[in-house]
């Protein structure tokens, strides 16, 4: 079909509607390496502005770590730029298998398979290991990539209320006649920063003979005493059947993901998962970088310990300022503003103050739950956080939201 004026007009109208609804996403161009201090061009064509980044998934500050960059350079030199092949034809190098073995050891699982991204891991894993005789029971707030993977799988699907273990148990009873039951959750939920109750979930899965799947993308490298993830935090290492995670956040921040868990399930992915079979895997320099990341994190917990301290400082600072934040102790700290326009206005004013943080609102979060999602990093120093707190206090004062309750803010600005 030719791309006619009518077709162009149709898409133009859709895009215009997105803009009118305030849902149009605009990129901000960063001219520096990813770090606590960045240089940003926004809007497009504007002169560069130095800002403090408090919205990256760079939890461990490893995105531009000199040792990681050096390792990636060395990987580029020794193993080349790309593979020009999927894994099972001629796209597997020694370093791909080395990384899989290192991830297996780091997470305390039986085996691991790499994917081009965790989005791909989640898109491929369910279809590879489940059939129409099975059921998937997922938390209602799991990540979009899991929902996409569930849609691609022929197994029955049901949900349980967010973190409601009583409701999960009811669902396990309801579907007890299925061949396999798989309980599906995020480890740390990306919008609220809360943590799954994996200890209770393991208990229920053992009671009802169900498999347990955890996406630990917002946990790997820093949650738990030695940063292994939510399974370490909850004392259930070795008891999670499938863990998916990403190398695009705390673990170096470049790209790539994996499925790690029971060796037969990993092998099923190697034989059947479509994103693995029909797409190149992670490029050699990135593999070399992630290997270095795991070496750094296995040698010392300094970075996750610093992140923990920074997070505590940040949470206390926001509360002391009189802002409303979501409870928890993860480095994802949502500052609740409830109203979408207020969230956008606060984000813009923070940017003017040299702080880069983004507003989230419906449909990304529920209606009336608009917020600024802040994310803390081991790459932040206390002076970064103090400056960001000062900006939050100044902007919060401007909008008269400091020390106000949720209802008071809603009364002033609406939902």
């Amino acid at each position, binding site marked *: 079909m030719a791309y006619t004026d009518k077709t162009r007009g149709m898409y133009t109208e859709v895009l215009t509607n997105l803009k009118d609804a305030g849902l149009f996403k605009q990129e901000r161009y960063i001219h520096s390496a990813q770090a606590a201090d960045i240089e940003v061009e926004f809007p497009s064509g504007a002169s560069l502005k130095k800002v403090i980044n408090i919205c990256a998934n760079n939890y461990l500050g490893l995105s531009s770590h000199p040792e990681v960059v050096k390792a990636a350079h060395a990987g580029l030199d020794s193993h080349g730029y790309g593979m020009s092949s999927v894994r099972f034809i001629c796209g597997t190098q020694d370093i791909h298998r080395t990384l899989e073995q290192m991830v297996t050891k780091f997470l305390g699982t039986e085996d691991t398979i790499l994917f081009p991204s965790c989005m791909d891991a989640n898109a491929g894993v369910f279809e590879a290991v489940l059939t129409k005789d099975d059921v998937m029971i997922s938390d209602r707030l799991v990540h979009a990539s899991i929902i996409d993977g569930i849609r691609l799988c022929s197994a029955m*699907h*049901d949900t349980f*209320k967010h973190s409601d273990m009583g409701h999960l148990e009811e*669902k396990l009873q309801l579907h007890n006649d299925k061949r396999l039951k798989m309980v599906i959750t995020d480890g740390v939920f990306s919008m609220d920063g809360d943590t799954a109750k994996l200890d209770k979930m393991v208990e229920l899965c053992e009671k009802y003979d169900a498999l347990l799947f955890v996406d630990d993308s917002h946990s790997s490298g820093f949650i738990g005493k030695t940063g292994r993830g939510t399974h370490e935090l909850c004392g259930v290492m070795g008891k999670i059947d499938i863990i998916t995670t990403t190398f695009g956040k705390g673990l170096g921040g470049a790209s790539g993901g994996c499925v790690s868990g029971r060796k037969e399930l990993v092998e099923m992915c190697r034989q059947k998962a479509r994103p693995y079979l029909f797409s190149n895997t992670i490029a050699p320099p990135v593999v070399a970088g992630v290997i270095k990341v795991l070496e750094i994190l296995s040698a010392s917990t300094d970075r996750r310990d610093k992140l923990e301290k920074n997070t505590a400082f940040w949470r206390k600072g926001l509360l002391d300022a009189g802002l409303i934040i979501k409870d928890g102790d993860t480095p994802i700290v949502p500052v609740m503003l409830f109203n979408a326009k207020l969230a956008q206005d606060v984000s813009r004013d923070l940017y003017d103050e040299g702080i880069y943080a983004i507003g989230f609102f419906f449909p990304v979060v529920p209606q009336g739950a608009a917020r600024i999602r802040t994310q803390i990093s081991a790459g932040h120093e206390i002076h970064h956080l103090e400056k960001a707190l000062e900006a939050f206090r100044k902007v919060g004062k401007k909008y008269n939201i400091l020390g106000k309750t949720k209802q008071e803010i809603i009364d002033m600005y609406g939902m």
Partner: protein
Amino acid sequence: MEDMKEIIKDYVIKEYVEDDTELTYDSPLISGGIVDSFSMVSLKRFLENKYNISIPDDKATPEAFDSVNKICLLVNDYLK
């Protein structure tokens, strides 16, 4: 029939409603966003277990599940 309506309405509230949304027998459940298509399966299984019936997948459509009244009509078809 009234008992059935009340039982189904109570189940929908307990299962899906997480705020103070009020529900009538004609409230649009699927098209109104109260029950998402993913979660319909538990409603179908609840009805099958409760009334000892089997609803074919091709009859368990979003349209047939879109209100308590419509669900009662569907269940009654299989009770006969």
